[in-house]
């Protein structure tokens, strides 16, 4: 991006974007207020970690340190679970209307601090301010409003049911605050208390949210936030006094959690990886398809569990679509995430960047054809350009493995039957998107694809009223809607029964 000021006539001539940065000052001021380190939020109080261990939180777009947070150990996890356990009877006994008021206050609190949260999220994760401001944070507020409603209606709509108990929730770094909302809102609406562990790359908005909850008067111990890496998560998963684990992350870790909780009696919901197909039939509106692909795989730098990462195109339009896509990719803008006019920000951390590079190299080695735009990414920070593979075999590593980056692999098909076969040809089943102007075809294909969400002529749409979650190795359980509430409810009569053995 050019930093030189251009005259109006020159701008008309070049049509260049100037820089349009969102100020980071309020977020930096807020962070400065938490120097030298954040605490963890237990039982309504901010406390230091038991052994004083801290780790750095990095801005991936600048590689600068943003903050230091606690690496919570066993005594901290114990204390958090104890706080949640102590708060449970009071919170569960509140009338639905009282819990609804608290959730409503959380929704309002998020809206009041929307810009701080959006800027902080962008700095912490590297995603563009355009996305955090227009998508992440509004969806967070929406989720709390929707679930304030479920708190209000729980006893009428789920008679004979109460909370599961103390819930341990472990969330990923790709939508840090949105995942807080997806986990915390239904849990609290149903009357559970929560110990939440945000991802170690992106703990800042969860900590900011805990402050908002505290200010909003959420009773002590109802929400506890502990920070740390996978070892902290493991302590939470293994804790004997946790009744349920809700996890969003990789299938690999999900599998470990399933094994670790086996026989413990803990309830489990897992939202795991994906390799979602993006199916384009030859009667689709190709210009809409191009914008759809941008939203599918370059949204959040492709670091989306339901990213449309496999482009399946009907043979007759494949060449035309690939040409249009390349033209569009040439115009995508990768740059500082706080610039309001960039399409893609930074990759969250070096380890992810390495993973993407490794898989792209593997794709080339295995014989697929790689294409990237002619322009270069910023050299400071962790950036990766939008990437398109053609001539990909369905069994190739890049066609099977979740890359979790801005890398699209494309394959072609002839018949709808072949499209379905290719679409289902991974162990995953999180999402799919189907593009055709023929409703008959769309509604024939949607039920045949094994996926928890199918978008017809759209992609990556989310809403609190509509459950999200996977089939097969993408996990089980739903988040959002009536179907999501069941994950946090237990029949009252169960408590009266004896165990087998």
């Amino acid at each position, binding site marked *: 991006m050019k930093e030189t000021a251009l005259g109006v006539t020159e701008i008309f001539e070049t049509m260049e974007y100037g820089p349009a940065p969102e100020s980071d000052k309020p977020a930096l001021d807020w962070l400065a207020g938490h120097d030298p380190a954040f605490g963890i939020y237990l039982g309504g109080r901010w406390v230091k970690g038991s052994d004083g261990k801290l780790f750095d939180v990095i801005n991936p777009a600048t590689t600068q340190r943003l903050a230091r947070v606690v690496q919570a150990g066993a005594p901290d996890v114990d204390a958090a679970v104890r706080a949640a356990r102590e708060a449970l009877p009071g919170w569960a006994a509140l009338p639905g209307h009282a819990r609804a008021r608290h959730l409503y206050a959380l929704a309002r609190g998020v809206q009041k601090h929307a810009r701080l949260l959006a800027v902080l999220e962008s700095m912490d994760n590297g995603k563009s301010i355009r996305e955090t401001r227009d998508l992440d944070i509004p969806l967070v507020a929406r989720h709390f409003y929707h679930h304030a409603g479920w708190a209000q209606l729980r006893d009428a709509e789920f008679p004979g049911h109460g909370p599961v108990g103390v819930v341990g929730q472990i969330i990923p770094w790709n939508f840090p605050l949105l995942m807080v909302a997806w986990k915390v809102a239904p849990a609290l609406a149903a009357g559970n208390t929560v110990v939440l562990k945000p991802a170690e790359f992106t703990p800042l908005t969860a900590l900011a949210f805990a402050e908002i909850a505290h200010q909003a008067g959420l009773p002590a111990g109802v929400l506890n936030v502990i920070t740390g890496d996978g070892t902290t998560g493991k302590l939470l998963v293994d804790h004997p006094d946790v009744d349920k684990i809700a996890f969003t992350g990789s299938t690999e870790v999900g599998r470990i959690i399933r094994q670790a909780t086996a*026989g413990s009696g803990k309830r489990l919901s897992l939202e795991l990886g994906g390799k979602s197909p993006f199916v384009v039939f030859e009667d689709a509106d190709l210009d809409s398809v191009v914008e759809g692909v941008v939203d599918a795989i370059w949204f959040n730098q492709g670091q989306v569990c339901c990213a449309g990462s496999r482009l399946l195109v009907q043979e007759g339009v494949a060449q035309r679509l690939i040409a249009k896509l390349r033209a569009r990719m040439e115009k995508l803008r990768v740059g500082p995430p706080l610039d309001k006019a960039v399409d893609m920000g930074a990759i969250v951390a070096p380890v992810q960047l390495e993973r993407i590079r490794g898989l792209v190299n593997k794709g080339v080695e295995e014989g697929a054809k790689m294409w990237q735009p002619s322009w270069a990414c910023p050299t400071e920070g962790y950036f990766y350009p939008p990437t398109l593979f053609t001539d990909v075999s369905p069994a190739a590593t890049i066609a099977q493995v979740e890359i979790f980056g801005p890398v699209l692999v494309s394959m072609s098909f002839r018949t709808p039957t072949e499209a379905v076969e290719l679409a289902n040809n991974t162990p995953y089943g999180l999402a799919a998107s189907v593009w055709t102007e023929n409703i008959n075809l769309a*509604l024939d294909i949607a*039920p045949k694809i094994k996926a928890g969400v199918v978008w017809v002529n759209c992609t990556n749409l989310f809403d609190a009223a509509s459950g*999200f979650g996977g089939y097969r190795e993408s996990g089980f359980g739903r988040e959002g*809607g009536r179907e999501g509430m069941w994950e946090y409810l237990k029949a009252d009569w169960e408590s009266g029964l004896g165990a087998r053995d």
Partner: protein
Amino acid sequence: MPAAVTPEREESGPSRAPSPEPLAPIDRTPKLFIGGKQVRPDQGYSRPIVGPEGRPVGEVGEGNRKDIRNAVEAAHAAAAWAQASGHLRGQILYYIAENLSARADEFAARIRAVTGRADARREVDATIARLFTYAAWADKYDGQVHHVPVRGVTLAMNEPIGVIGLACPNESPLLGFVSLVAPAIATGNTVIALPSEPHPLSATDFYSVLETSDVPAGVVNIVSGAKDPLAQVLAEHFDVDAVWYCGGHAGAAAVERASAGNMKRTWVLAHLRDWFDTRQGEGREFLREATQVKNIWIPYGE
């Protein structure tokens, strides 16, 4: 070979030639039920089944890993069941109830003989009612239309999970078996059912009811034998999409651990349920476990 349980057969009719001894009952050999066929177990072993006083009451096939593999293949081959209309699945469930009802006395006598329980007839009647419940649900477990903030609709469809392994409860050998099988097949799944380990004869009697009720081959497969090892095989199998497990803690832990292979859904019924109680033994909880929600977003207009 142990005595059969139907007392009528032990008495000679008046037209029969006089005999110094009553005739021996005709032996019945319960088999496994796989792909709509009665089949002998792969290994050719049988396991003795004893009644309440330790008296032998029959023998069932000792199923093994290969039998489970065959049953899983048969269950997959029957996947068209998912596309059958709820109306058709409902009719078939009613018909199962009808055919069970015609043999209610026989099933009650069997339950009495193997468990010694006096309320055997009540269990058969409750089983018939349970089949009616899921015949009713087959065309009523609707999805939803969600209101989302786009111009369009989101259809939340209740789709079957696919192939479900069912480790049935030891208690209530007929009612417990049907309480798991019926909701699974009512919603379009196909199943491999492991009957009560101590009392499997009600389940093996039941396949002849299935055979006369228009249940397509492979929709219900029954493999008798040692429940926990067979449940473990089901939990490890990559072509099984879910396992429901009624049994002890060690078996439940093993099933949950093994399920991590393909991240299949598991449902451990950890508590001893009263299967006669409709609140505990039937209804939406079972239907939810038998289905997974697919949300289809359909925006319209521009």
